[in-house]
């Protein structure tokens, strides 16, 4: 049965009660088959592919004599294991084999690949929106759990495993059970210096890392409306860190403005028609959610993680907590932290500004504004890894690369890099890092490495200070002034003049 508009009806299919949520509407538009007791067979509009989770899928297709059904709806890039210095040549044999496999597989199937050296290469969740491939109302999948990032555009986007990658390659469909509808209402103005990253870290600290299991989350409320598209992407990106496969924001004029004119965005009359369709996607005013969580943005501070999962986070003004359970005890042992230590007293060896969470142009701008005219602390090795080659070029056109390199940061090529440390960008055992990425799991950035998740301005400030620090305590310093040692500051907080919040809180 063809089921497109407005509500699918098949024999035996139970029509969802009107009114509907954003996720519900997109779901209904993509049901290919629905039968009692079975999951729905959902059509997938866009399949993003990268080198790490796809080789086994292609191999299995070939072994079974199958072909890729819709290479035209499939786009590939190299991001997870490529070196960020020295290009392909710098990769070891195993990594090359994986990149080569992707190239060969894309050639075999006729899939567009943005490989190393392409001006469009980059982290899969950064280039999708950048290329205008990510549209409101699309179903988008990728063999990567942060696919939820694309939900910032009002797409139903979620991560899948390699068997499902194979399934989508072969059928352009997936069997899925309808998720719960969960709303997160965020209201209140984000204080200056507090970013979308702090918002989502603060949320996870409050609700815990499994609260979103089984759910499609819609982020709503005035604060979310006020965020830039980049900020919304940061929030949706981290959905999986509290268990939700899907995180989304209803499309609005900001969404449309971001997409207009991009390479794969509809054009001309098609653009107008698309706008009409996209505007109709918003959750109906009286749509029922299975659960609603509320967050007051005005009460937030910059957040930092102290443990080994993203929910083990606290405001930067806080202290390492007393461990409440065995998990926390284990985390503190791994992190080599003592309860009661002020978070701002935690010294750092490394700083990483990058990842699909926080490596878009806006993130780099905000970090650069903190860094400008200052020096990285001599103890710290700091690096910036732009989210895509496009971001890198745009940042260089603005001179951001020089701001970073003159301060002592390394300026790298695009990729996932030390977000997961599959290439040689890794922490040494025992090294401690402030990172703008999304996971502080044990060993995530390198075996024995210790990760503190923070926002881009907080990472920049930490690089300068040599320890975790409240970026709002730095911003009142005259531009260029050396950042003083920890002792003596942090008390009275004069009105900050540098960015921090501006760009990110939009």
């Amino acid at each position, binding site marked *: 049965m063809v089921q497109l508009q407005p509500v699918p009806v098949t024999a035996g299919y139970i029509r969802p009660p009107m009114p509907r949520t954003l996720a519900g509407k997109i779901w209904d538009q993509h049901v290919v088959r629905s039968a009692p007791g079975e999951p729905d067979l959902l059509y997938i509009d*866009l399949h993003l592919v990268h080198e790490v989770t796809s080789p086994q899928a292609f191999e299995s297709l070939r072994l079974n004599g199958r072909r890729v059904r819709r290479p035209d709806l499939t786009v590939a890039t190299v991001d997870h294991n490529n070196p960020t210095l020295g290009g392909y040549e710098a990769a070891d044999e*195993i990594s090359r084999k994986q990149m080569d496999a992707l190239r060969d597989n894309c050639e075999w199937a006729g899939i567009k690949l943005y490989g190393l050296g392409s001006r469009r290469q980059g982290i899969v969740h950064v280039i999708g929106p950048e290329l205008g*491939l990510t549209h409101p109302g699309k179903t988008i999948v990728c063999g990567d759990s942060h696919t939820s990032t694309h939900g910032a555009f009002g797409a139903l986007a979620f*991560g899948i495993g390699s*068997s499902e990658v194979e399934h989508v390659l072969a059928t352009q469909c997936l069997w899925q059970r309808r998720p719960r509808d969960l709303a997160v209402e965020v209201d209140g103005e984000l204080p200056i210096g507090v970013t979308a990253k702090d918002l989502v870290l603060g949320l996870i600290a409050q609700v815990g890392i499994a609260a979103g299991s089984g759910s499609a989350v819609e982020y709503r409320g005035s604060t979310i409306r006020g965020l830039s598209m980049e900020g919304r992407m940061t929030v949706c990106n981290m959905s999986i860190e509290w268990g939700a*496969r899907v995180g989304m924001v209803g499309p609005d004029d900001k969404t449309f403005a971001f997409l207009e004119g991009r390479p794969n965005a509809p054009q001309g009359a098609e653009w107008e028609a698309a706008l009409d369709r996209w505007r109709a996607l918003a959750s109906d005013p009286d749509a029922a959610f299975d659960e609603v969580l509320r967050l007051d943005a005005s009460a937030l501070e910059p957040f930092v993680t102290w443990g080994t999962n993203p929910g083990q986070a606290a405001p930067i003004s806080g202290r390492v907590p007393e461990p409440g359970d065995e998990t926390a005890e284990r985390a503190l042992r791994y992190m080599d932290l003592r309860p009661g230590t002020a978070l701002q007293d935690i010294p750092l060896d490394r700083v990483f500004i990058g990842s699909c969470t926080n490596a878009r142009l806006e993130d780099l701008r905000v970090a650069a504004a903190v860094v400008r005219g200052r020096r990285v602390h001599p103890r710290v090795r700091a690096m910036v890894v732009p989210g895509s080659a496009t971001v890198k070029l745009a940042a260089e056109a603005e001179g951001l690369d020089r701001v970073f390199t003159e301060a002592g940061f390394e300026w790298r090529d695009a990729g996932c890099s030390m977000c*997961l440390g599959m290439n040689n960008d890794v922490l040494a055992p025992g090294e401690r890092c402030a990172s703008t990425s999304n996971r502080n799991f044990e060993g995530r950035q390198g075996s024995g490495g210790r990760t503190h998740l923070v926002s881009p301005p907080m990472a920049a400030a930490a690089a300068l200070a040599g320890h975790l620090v409240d970026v709002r305590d730095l911003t009142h310093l005259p531009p260029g002034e050396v950042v003083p040692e920890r002792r003596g500051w942090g008390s009275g907080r004069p009105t900050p003049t540098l960015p921090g919040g501006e760009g990110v809180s939009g």
Partner: protein
Amino acid sequence: MKALRVHQGRMAPLDRDNVDTDQIIPKQFLRRVERSGFGPFLFYDWRREDPDFVLDRPQYRGASVLVAGVNFGCGSSREHAPWAIEDAGFRVVIAPSFADIFRSNCGKVGILALALPEGRVRQLMEVASEAPDTELTVDLEKQLVSAPGFECGFEVDPFTRECLLNGWDEVALTLRHQDAIAAYEEGRSSVQNGSTPPGSRLQSQHS
């Protein structure tokens, strides 16, 4: 995929909550392009830093049921995690709860990710610690877990159950609905994006 109807085996207790897929299979092993051979790297970092790591104790050698804490398999979508678990000889993972993507991946790999109430998991954890020779029977047909002095029914997604019971290849299953997919595509290209399928410009533009 190997079918799973009734499985009998010994348990290994991994008494930790929120075990993430980065721990199950660390990233340095994700560069392999093969699907098998991940078993030796299961929990690699934990095993390396702790010579007495539970799975390496002699009494748990050959165990085929992994018992763990809440939210097992959170984090990355890497199917390498269930591949490693399967390659290390496990067919069933029992925990109070699982992360969504991990649970779904298990079903595709032929592993049963079985959620039981926390108290029951705790009981199994104790049995596995105190009487490691105990054989647990997991009957997917009857949806029943049992051991001497222990019995517990369980819920499982009916579709996953069918696939596991029969060892079905999901792709083959879906390809039986080719006509429905083709019909959907026809409607889709005329409705979405005016008359042009969304991706169709992609090829000409960049190739």
